């Protein structure tokens, strides 16, 4: 199949914007809605490469993914690989950079309480937009598109990804083509983060569509992003071409290809032979990393993700109701073996559900120690007596349970085997009950039908630590709740902290609130945290510009800045 590289005029990228004029402005602000201000401006380097980006887009990058992106409407339900593609085709109002700062994209400046963008009570929002952004078909981007996008999200017939936060938006007013106002029903600070993940869609194309859930747009999307839609071969690859009229920095690549390679061993092999230039989600398997680092002509990046690998107990299930049991089980986990041996030392040990790079991370949490003797002592003292088979029992409840994870994940399956052995030593009997992803995350997970699950979860909402849907008492689906508190955790103190945190716009205060929350969760051992996950990505030598970003779901977030040296 012939590919269609765009025909470029000379000097198409005449107006590259050199960074964000407002960076310095919001750096000076003390407390502002959701910005993390601990990192100095110089750390926000523009390009780390030795060579400079070319004047004209040049070359192509083949990015390998182990899951196939299939959703190209950025407001519909999509997973991380889909979002990776959305980053190229579409733009949000602003995004979060690796350091945690909000950076304007389609907006001209980040709205804050101090610059009047957000009213003091958090209810009135006034956003100023860029006037030079263009859709891929040449039409100008205006505030009408923002209104249309937000209205579409709240359209009851539209199969939107999520209305969290958006449903609070009322009375959207297009004041000028480059300014939009709206009113929030109640103050909700995480909305800044939510908007950083919300891409804008074109009104002039989608308003004519009869079915918002199904239209030609879905497979030939038009956005304001750095790359325009090229072609797609289902089950094989997606090809994107550079958008010369892009309003931001870049793009420096003529073409970006997202290649679907379902098997991780094969993905690594294709990287080795140079058939792909970049290995994205889910990265290079831990057992290949050592070898990968020695490959000539390739650079390996090991970066943390926001996902925390933990054992999720069903807090209403038999033995897990007792906090002592949870503590004993936690002490009997050989985290060092799991991290160093099974995961080749790549991820980092953690006690919190917040990633260590986040502004809300609480470093002062009790540290885990692998102490089976202590675990045994705790259980003995609490009255859990060993039965004839060696399994502990108390009040008719046996210390036995199943643990589930997605089948086919080698490292997790090995972790389970190790847990079985270590926990048997303290009188706990664990049995494996693995199932494929489509099954385990269905009712089994959602309706809390599990005993325990070995899972990695990104608790953050973008960069925001509001975990009400995960730990709030009213968020348990099995009890009719609205969120995904599948652990069935109930603690009024936690509810109080969560409510306060979501109302608060002052950063320093939020930090304290969420710090206390992490202490509470850790003391209650609502989850048994293992480590903060990492992803190992490989880039071919000569490819510059790659920068991991823990605040986005995909490290493809800045492909517009990639170039061949």
């Amino acid at each position: 199949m012939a590919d269609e590289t765009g025909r470029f005029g000379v000097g198409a990228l005449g107006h590259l914007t050199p960074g964000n004029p407002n960076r310095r402005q919001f750096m000076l602000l003390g407390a502002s809605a959701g910005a993390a201000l601990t990192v100095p401006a110089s750390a926000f380097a523009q390009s780390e490469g030795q060579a400079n980006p070319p004047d004209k887009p040049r070359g192509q990058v083949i990015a390998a993914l182990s899951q196939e992106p299939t959703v190209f409407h950025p407001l519909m339900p999509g997973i991380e690989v889909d979002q990776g593609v959305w980053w190229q085709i579409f733009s949000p109002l602003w995004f979060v950079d690796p350091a945690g700062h909000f950076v304007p994209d389609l907006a001209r400046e980040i709205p804050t309480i101090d610059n009047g963008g957000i009213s003091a009570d958090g209810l009135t929002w006034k956003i100023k937009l860029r006037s030079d952004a263009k859709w891929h078909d040449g039409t100008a981007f205006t505030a009408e598109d923002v209104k249309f996008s937000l209205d579409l999200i709240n359209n009851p017939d539209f199969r939107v990804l999520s209305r969290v936060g958006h449903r609070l938006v009322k009375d959207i007013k297009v004041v000028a083509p480059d300014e939009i106002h709206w009113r929030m029903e109640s103050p909700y600070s995480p909305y800044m983060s939510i908007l950083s993940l919300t891409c804008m869609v074109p009104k002039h194309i989608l308003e004519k569509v009869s079915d918002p859930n199904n239209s030609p747009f879905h497979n030939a999307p038009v956005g304001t992003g750095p790359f325009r839609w090229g072609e797609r071969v289902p089950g094989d690859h997606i090809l994107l071409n550079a958008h010369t009229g892009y309003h931001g920095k870049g793009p420096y690549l003529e073409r970006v290809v997202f290649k679907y390679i379902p098997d991780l061993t094969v993905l690594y092999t294709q990287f080795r032979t140079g058939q792909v230039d970049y290995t994205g989600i889910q990265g290079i398997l831990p057992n290949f990393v050592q070898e990968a680092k020695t490959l000539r002509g390739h650079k390996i990046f090991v970066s943390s993700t926001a996902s925390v690998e933990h054992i999720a107990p069903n807090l209403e299930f038999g033995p897990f109701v007792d906090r002592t049991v949870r503590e004993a089980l936690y002490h009997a986990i050989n985290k060092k073996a799991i991290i160093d041996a099974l995961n080749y030392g790549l991820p980092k040990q953690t006690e919190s559900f917040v990633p260590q790079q986040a502004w809300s991370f609480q470093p002062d949490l009790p540290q885990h120690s692998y102490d089976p003797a202590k675990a045994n002592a705790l259980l003995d003292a609490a009255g859990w007596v060993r039965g004839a088979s060696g399994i502990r029992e108390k009040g008719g409840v046996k210390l036995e349970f199943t643990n589930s994870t997605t089948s086919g994940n080698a490292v997790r399956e090995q972790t389970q085997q190790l847990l079985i052995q270590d926990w048997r030593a303290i009188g706990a009997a664990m049995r494996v009950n693995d199932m494929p992803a489509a099954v385990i995350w269905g009712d089994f997970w959602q309706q809390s039908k599990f005993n325990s699950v070995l899972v990695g979860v990104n608790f953050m909402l973008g960069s925001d630590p509001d975990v009400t849907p995960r730990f709030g008492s009213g968020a348990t689906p099995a009890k009719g709740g609205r969120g995904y508190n599948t652990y069935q955790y109930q603690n009024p103190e936690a509810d109080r902290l969560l409510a306060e945190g979501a109302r608060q716009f002052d950063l320093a205060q939020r930090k304290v609130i969420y710090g206390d929350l992490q202490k509470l969760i850790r003391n209650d051992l609502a989850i048994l945290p293992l480590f903060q996950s990492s992803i190992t990505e490989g880039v071919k030598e000569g490819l510059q510009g790659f920068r991991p970003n823990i605040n986005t779901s995909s490290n493809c977030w800045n492909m517009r800045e990639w170039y061949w040296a």
Partner: protein
Amino acid sequence: MGAAALQSVQLAPGQAAWQRFRRHRLAVAGAAIIVILVLGSAFGPYLLPFDDTYIDIMRRFAPPLSGAHILGTDELGRDVLARLMMGGRVSIAIGIVAMIIAMAVGILVGAFAGFYGGVLGAVLMRLVDAVLCFPAIFLLLALAALTEPGLMTTTVLIAATAWMNVARVVEAQVRSLREREFAVAAVAFGSSDLRIMFRELVPNAMAPIVVSATLNVATAILLESYVSYLGYGIQPPAASWGNMLNNAQIYLTSAPWLALAPGIAITLAVTSFNFLGDGLRDALDPRMNIP
């Protein structure tokens, strides 16, 4: 000559078959290897100092002959030889039982369909077609909906994917043999239907049946690996040659013995069953000329 020659000619059919079998050296070798494998799997674990599920995380990926572990250790430090033997119990059992179930169902369905033809034959063969319409993964889905994965369910699943081919082949053969002289003669002779089916027709269709059976054992052992690849199969920590092969995939270059051990075991088993099958066919088929 004389009396001795007469004696040798008047061997009972069973003894004659045994003699023919014995002359087939490869078949004898195959049978011997299978016996060794079965005995090894059954009794071997008692002779080894290592447990097949004991995890020794510090001694993972020990190469063969590097220490106390003859075949080395796997990704969790478990003894490969112990797992190979325990796995052998599972895989050989699955291979044989699944094959027997598949053959039994397939021969029955095929013989009845081929012999009677007409409505019964059509209904039976359409049943075969119907089950054939569902790809293996789909049957897996069906089973997953009803049961939890395990030894019995995996065996049933594998048999369920194999019996249709047997039925098809048997039906075609029986249908063609039905019109042959010996069959017509048997009918004229007054033999009952069942007798004709299973004494005259099926034995004459032995050749493709035996080939089918030996191929089925091979397929069954390998299908178990495929089934664990799809997430069902024998659950850890239990070992099977199939799931050992599966787990060894990502360590192909770093720890090749993890794949070689079960791979060679499977090859030996499959090859032995094949030669055994050859010998059986030669022994049981009265028309075969043994050079």
